[in-house]
């Protein structure tokens, strides 16, 4: 029984990384910009969090620095793709390379060293003392944010406010949005920057809470899994959080298998998150063709907006 609890705790911790990054990507893609640089921004966020936390001995400052770097990187991407209308796929992949390479260069000296300051868990009074399910309410602040506050906030903003309606309009039909006076480029840029900030935060979640050490290649495709997850959840904030937990569970399976001594080599177990993600992308498309409308991408996703071509 305790093993099952530990599996779920593991899934919560690892799922929170995905959930933060995916939530940001949902916002950007709802506005019509596909940010494929998430992986690179997460790496930059993770390494900045370590450097800032080491320098200031404050996890909060580490977190803040990671968010700032994520937002800054996304701002560059946004200026290029939204204002410069450059190819979004290309710029996103470039940002990933740049982020992965740069983070390895600046993190060279702190690689493998323990981080000076990290977040401890925040137990919720009363609930955390419950038998059996108590540990579920004794989590890092990132977990509460990723699975509680943020998906609700994003859902309400996207589907219950005028701001969210405008954001979605910009992603579905920028020409019409422009015609009613919504500043298309400003909305897109804003969504990309907030998305990037959340990717940076996801990186900080990794190095300040989940595994408090920086090493090159530690993001290990989580940014790409987050991008895949956004498609899987049909660009919906609450479903994004739920599917992050599911993906977190798949990721935890390899640890679980190793702890349980399954007769499968660790390298093969390590493949499961990637195999799982590919299956999660292909199987629903195969089995549920009728769901395509419900899960459809924003109509203008990936296309720059030119006012002349309205």
């Amino acid at each position, binding site marked *: 029984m305790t093993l099952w609890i530990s599996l779920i705790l593991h899934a919560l911790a690892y799922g929170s990384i995905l959930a933060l990054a995916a939530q940001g990507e949902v916002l950007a893609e709802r506005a019509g910009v596909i940010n494929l640089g998430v992986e690179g921004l997460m790496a930059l966020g993770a390494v900045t969090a370590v450097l800032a936390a080491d320098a200031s001995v404050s996890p909060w400052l580490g977190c803040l620095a990671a968010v700032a770097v994520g937002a800054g990187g996304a701002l560059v991407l946004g200026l290029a793709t939204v204002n410069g209308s450059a190819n979004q796929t*290309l710029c996103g992949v470039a940002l990933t390379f740049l982020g992965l390479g740069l983070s390895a*260069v600046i993190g060279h000296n702190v690689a493998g060293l323990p981080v000076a300051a990290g977040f401890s868990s925040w137990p919720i009074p009363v609930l955390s003392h419950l038998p059996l399910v108590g540990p579920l309410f004794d989590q890092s602040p990132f977990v509460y944010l990723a699975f509680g506050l943020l998906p609700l906030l994003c859902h309400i903003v996207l589907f219950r406010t005028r701001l969210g309606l405008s954001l979605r309009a910009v992603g579905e039909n920028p020409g019409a949005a422009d015609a009613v006076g919504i500043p298309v480029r400003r909305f897109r840029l804003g969504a990309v920057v907030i998305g990037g900030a959340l990717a940076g935060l996801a990186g900080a979640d990794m190095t300040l809470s989940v595994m408090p050490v920086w090493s090159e290649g530690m993001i290990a495709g989580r940014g790409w899994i987050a*991008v895949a997850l956004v498609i899987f959840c049909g660009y919906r904030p609450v479903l994004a959080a739920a599917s992050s937990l599911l993906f977190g569970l798949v990721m935890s399976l390899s640890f679980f298998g190793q702890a349980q001594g399954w007769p499968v080599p660790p*390298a093969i177990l390590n493949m499961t998150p990637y195999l799982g993600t590919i299956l999660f992308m*292909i199987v629903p498309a195969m089995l549920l063709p009728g769901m395509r409308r419900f899960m459809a991408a924003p109509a203008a996703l990936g296309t720059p907006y030119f006012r002349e071509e309205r």
Partner: protein
Amino acid sequence: MSRRIRLSVVPARRIFIGRALALGFVFLVLALVLMLLGLNLGTVATLVVTSTFGTEFGLENLALYMTPLLMTGAAVWLALRAGLWNIGAEGQFLAGATAASAVGLFLPFPAFVTLPLAAMAGMIAGACWSAVPAAGRAWLGVSEIITTLLLNFIASYLVYYLVTGPWADRVTGAQVSSERIHAAIPTIYGVVHWGGPLALAVVTALGLLLGRSRFGYELTLSGSNPEAAHYAGVSVAPRLFMALVFSGALAGLGGMMEALGTVHRLQGGLAHGYGYLGIVVALLARQSALALIPAAFLMAVILNMGIVLQTLQVSASSVLAITGLLVFAIAVSDELAAYVRLETQK
């Protein structure tokens, strides 16, 4: 009065000038970063030039880098002609290298039988590695960018598992490596092997196939305008599938050349980022297959520069950062090159 308009077809000269500026920008940023790191620019530049062009070893290295870059570049380029992004050339390259190594390690044939067999095995493995993303994209509309990329991780774990487990070197005890493969691609000069000329031939043949055949025409049409292709009676989905599967086969052949020509072992770090650099090679080449050759040359020089930087205690990943910056600069410059100022009468 003048007004800015965006050209839908951009003259090659404008693109070329833009990219030259982009390349200049990347070198400028690189110079600034190196200065900030406290390195003497003159020394670094001399070191790069002499170690690349000044020694026989450097020139041989350049040829050895160009071979896999040509193959992965051709792979990404072919997919791109059909409007698809193959970000998984790295994984297909590893899959090809793995299958070719299996042939080289375990089949007791003389080299003239083993080498063609290994090449076949490499191409088939590379094709299989891209078949699932290809089918997903062609018939289900699943983004090939993410699926091909995720398969890179799986390929590298697979190679790692093989070379630390069942195929580990028990003769010399080399770490994360298989035993030496006895069948080797014959060399031309020094360590430069026949893989290079073969890659050049493949690139040329690819250019002819895409530019001069019905298949090539239908593939390009399916990529640039699927609806028009459908209307003209071309079945788009099978063309997209074929493009991505052929693309995987090309990368797989590159992996075979690397394993049996250059490294002579299956190793953990065999792919060396060639798959990712192939994206830049393909991007630089634009519509022309023959342009892959100078593009691969440029990237080989940059790769060699990375080795020099590594000896100066800069992380080996700096190449990845430079690559990213270059792709970003090219993407922006290509777009900016499309804008012209139009004089209007008022």
